[in-house]
C-alpha cells in the first residue's frame, strides 16, 4: 500500500497539466482515486463533509445487485439442466451458470469502462462512476443466450447515446442500462424475445428433452395459457427469464440494502409496486383474457417488474428529483408496466418501456411539483399582503 502510494506519487508529476504525459491525466486520476480517496481538503464553505461520495454510493448499489447476480448464475445452470432433463447437482449448475454469465458481465464492464475512459480522455474530465452500476445492470437484464458481440454493441450504444451525448453521469435523460436493453430489443428481437432465448442451450436445441418449453410466464399468458409456474416459484425465481430478474426474493434483498443505506429511494420502490398491484387488481376485475386474469401479486413477481422497480426506476438521475414527484413517478411506472404487458402482448416486457417512458416524463412531473411550491409561496405573499 505504501509502495503503491509511492509509485503513484512518482508518476503524478508527469501527468499534470503542462507535463509530458498530461493527456493521460484523467486515466491516471481514475486509477489513483480507485486505490486512494484523494487528500483534497475543503477550501471554502463547509469544513467537514459527509464521508459518502459517488464511488461509495455506486459501490453500494453494485453490492445490492450481488444477490440477484448470484441467484441468476445458479438459476442459469438450473434451468439449463432442467431443459436437458439432467439432475446435475448444485455445483455443476453454478459452474455452468458462471461460464455463461460471467463473460457477459466482463464484456459489459470492459467495453463500457473503455468507452468511459476514452470520453474522459477527450473531454479532459475525471472518469465518473456512473458506469459501475450500469455495467452490472446491463448483463442482468439480458437473456443468457445473447451473443457477446451484441452485449458489446449495446453497451457502446448505451454509454454514448444513453449518457455521454448528454454530458456524462448526472446529465442523462434515460437510464443507460435500459437504453442498452431497448436497443437490443428493437434491433435484434429474435435474440431478445420468444420462448427459446431464456434458457442457455435451448436455442440450438441439442439434448433438450422432448416437449420442453422454455416459455416465460409472461410468454405463456400472452399466448392465452395460464402461467405454469406458481406465485411461489416466481417469487423464489426458479423460472426462465433474463439473468438477474427472475428472483423477486434476491431483488428484495437488494432493495433492503438500498433502502436501509438510504441510497435508493424507498418512495419510488414502494410506489412502483403499489402501481403495479393496483393495475393488476383492476385487470383481474375485468378479466377478459389470460393476461388479465393473472393474479395481481403474480404479476409483480414475474418478468422484469421487481428488478425494474428496485434497480432501474430508482436511478436518481433519470427519475424525478422532487420527493412528491417520486410518488407519482413510481406509481405511474408500475401502472403503465402492467398496462403495456396486458394490452400489447407483442411487448410482454412492459416494465422496460414504462420506465423509459416515465424517464422521459420525469422532468414534467418535477415541473408541476416545482410550480406547486412557487404557487404556495405566492399565495402566502398574497395572504400576508
Amino acid at each position: 500500500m505504501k509502495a503503491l502510494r509511492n509509485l503513484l506519487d512518482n508518476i503524478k508529476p508527469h501527468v499534470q497539466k503542462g507535463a509530458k504525459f498530461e493527456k493521460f491525466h484523467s486515466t491516471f486520476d481514475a486509477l489513483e482515486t480507485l486505490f486512494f480517496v484523494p487528500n483534497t481538503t475543503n477550501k471554502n464553505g463547509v469544513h467537514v463533509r459527509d464521508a459518502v461520495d459517488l464511488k461509495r454510493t455506486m459501490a453500494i448499489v453494485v453490492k445490492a445487485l450481488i444477490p440477484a447476480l448470484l441467484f441468476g448464475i445458479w438459476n442459469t445452470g438450473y434451468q439449463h439442466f432442467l431443459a436437458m432433463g439432467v439432475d446435475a447437482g448444485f455445483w455443476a449448475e453454478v459452474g455452468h451458470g458462471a461460464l455463461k454469465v460471467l463473460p457477459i458481465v466482463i464484456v459489459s464492464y470492459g467495453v463500457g469502462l473503455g468507452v468511459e475512459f476514452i470520453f474522459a480522455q477527450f473531454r479532459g474530465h475525471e472518469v465518473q462512476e456512473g458506469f459501475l452500476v450500469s455495467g452490472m445492470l446491463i448483463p442482468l437484464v439480458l437473456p443468457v443466450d445473447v451473443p457477446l458481440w451484441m452485449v458489446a454493441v449495446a453497451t457502446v450504444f448505451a454509454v454514448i447515446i444513453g449518457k455521454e451525448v448528454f454530458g456524462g453521469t448526472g446529465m442523462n435523460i434515460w437510464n443507460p442500462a435500459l437504453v442498452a436493453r431497448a436497443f437490443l430489443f428493437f434491433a435484434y428481437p429474435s435474440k431478445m424475445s420468444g420462448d427459446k432465448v431464456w434458457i442457455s442451450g435451448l436455442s440450438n436445441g441439442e439434448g433438450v428433452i422432448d416437449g420442453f418449453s422454455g416459455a416465460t410466464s409472461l410468454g405463456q399468458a400472452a399466448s392465452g395459457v395460464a402461467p405454469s409456474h406458481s406465485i411461489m416459484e416466481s417469487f423464489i425465481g426458479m423460472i426462465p427469464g433474463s439473468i438477474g430478474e427472475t428472483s423477486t426474493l434476491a431483488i428484495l434483498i437488494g432493495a433492503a440494502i438500498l433502502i436501509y443505506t438510504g441510497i435508493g429511494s424507498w418512495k419510488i420502490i414502494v410506489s412502483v409496486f403499489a402501481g403495479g398491484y393496483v393495475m393488476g387488481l383492476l385487470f383481474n376485475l375485468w378479466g377478459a383474457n389470460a393476461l388479465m386474469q393473472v393474479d395481481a401479486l403474480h404479476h409483480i413477481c414475474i418478468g422484469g417488474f421487481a428488478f425494474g422497480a428496485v434497480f432501474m426506476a430508482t436511478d436518481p438521475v433519470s427519475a424525478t428529483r422532487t420527493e412528491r414527484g417520486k410518488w407519482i413517478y413510481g406509481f405511474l411506472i408500475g401502472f403503465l408496466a402492467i398496462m403495456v404487458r396486458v394490452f400489447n402482448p407483442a411487448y410482454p416486457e412492459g416494465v422496460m418501456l414504462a420506465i423509459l417512458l416515465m424517464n422521459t416524463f420525469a422532468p414534467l412531473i418535477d415541473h408541476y411539483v416545482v410550480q406547486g411550491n412557487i404557487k404556495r409561496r405566492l399565495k402566502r405573499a398574497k395572504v400576508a399582503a
Partner: protein
Amino acid sequence: MSEVIKIKKGLDIQLSGKAEKVFGQADLPELFAIRPTDFHGVVPKMAVKVGDKVKTGTVLFFDKYRPEIKFVSPVSGELAAVNRGERRKILEIVVKSDGSDEKEHFEPTKVSDLSKEQIVEKLQAAGLWSFIRKRPYDVIADANETPKAFYISGFDSAPLAPDMDFILSGQEEALQAGINVVKQLCENVHIGVQYDAASKVFNNLNGVTVHAFNGPHPAGNVGVQIHHTMPISKGEVVWVAQPQEIVAIGKLFTEGIYDASRIVVLAGSEVEKKAYYRTKLGASISTLVKDNVKKNDTLRYISGNVLTGTQIEEDGYIGAYHSQVTVIPEGDYYEFMGWALPGFGKFSMSRSFFSWMCKKKEYRLDANMHGGLRSFVVSGQYDQVLPMDILPEFLFRAILVEDIDKMEQLGIYEIAEEDIALCEFVCTSKQPLQATLRKGIDLMIKELS
C-alpha cells in the same frame, strides 16, 4: 411561552470536542484585526493610515458606497498593517493594542428621548450598525428600509456551538437595554429559543415575542426561525442580530462606550482546554491556542463553526460575527481503498458505512473532502436537512443558470448560506453550495438595485 415549533428535518453532527461550561484563562493578544471580507458587499475605504493612533471605537474604515456604515477599532493602540490580497483587495486591517483600552466617548442617552433617525445615526457613528443584518440576502441592513420584524436567535444549534444562556448570564441588563434600542427601530421584536433549555435570560426579557423551537440543527438559525413564524415574501425585509451584538448596542446607550468584548467558545477535537474565553472581537487567536492544541496532525483553525466558519491561521483573527473558534484535523492524507472499506467510525447521514452498527456518540471529523466534485446525481439529500418549504436543488439550478425570476420564485429571499450549509455537508457530489448561493444572492442584489 407560546407553543413549541417542532423542526423535523436537519442533522446534528456529533463532533467530539464539546466545551465545558467554564471560563478558561488567556491573556488578550497584542494584535487585533477587522476583516472587511466578513461583511458581504462592503467595499472598504480606509479612514486612518498605518501608524495612526486609534482608540477603542475609532473609525478604521467605511463602506465606499454607503459611507454612513463605519467599522471601528476594537482596541486602542496603533494601526499596524493593512494586509492586501490579489488586486490590492483589503483582507485584514490590523491594530496593535497598547493595552490601555482608551475609549472614544459616545454620550450615554435615554433611548426614549431619541427619534428613530437619531438612534440609527448613533449606531452608525459608533460602528455598531454593521451588526444589524437583514434578510433577504444576509447583508448589513439598510436604514432606509422598514423591516416587518426584528429577529434574534437565542441559541446556536451548529456543531460545538456556544451556549447562549451561559454567555449572556450576568449581562441581562445590557441585553434588555439593547432590546429597548432595537424596539425603537422596529416595534416587532422576536426571539427564538430552544424549547427545553432553561433560558431564563430570554424568557425574562420585556417587550419581545418568544418562539420555542425543538429539533436538530439548523433549528437555531434565524432564517429557519423566520421561515416557521413569519416567512419573508418578495419586498419584505426582516432585520436580524445576534445576542452578544444586542448587548454591545445596549452598552452604547447606557454607558456611552463601544464595547468590543465577546465571549467565545474554543472547541474541537484538537483543543486541550475546551472552554469559554473572554476576549474581544477581532482578537488574534494566538493566545487562545498557544500550548492548548494537540500537535500530532496538521491542524485547521476555524473562526466560527465547522459548517459556516472561516479558515484562519493559528495566529488568525476571530471574525466579526463569530463567537466560536473550532480546531479540527486538516485531514490532508490519502486513504487506501476508502470507498470500498466497511468504514467503521465514519460519519455519514446515509447508512452506507458500517458506522451505523456501532454508533459512536462523537466523531473526530477532519477537513478531508472524502471524494471528488461531481455533477448532481443523488436526489432528495438536501431536502432532508433543510427544514423549509423550499426545493433546494431547483433553487441551485436556477442560480447556476442565472435565472433571476426562478430564484425569486423558489425562495432565495428566505435563505442564507448558513441555512444550506448542511446541504453542502451531506452532498454526495461535493458541490460548493454555499458559494453557489452567495453567487446567486450577489446577482440578485446587482440586478434588483
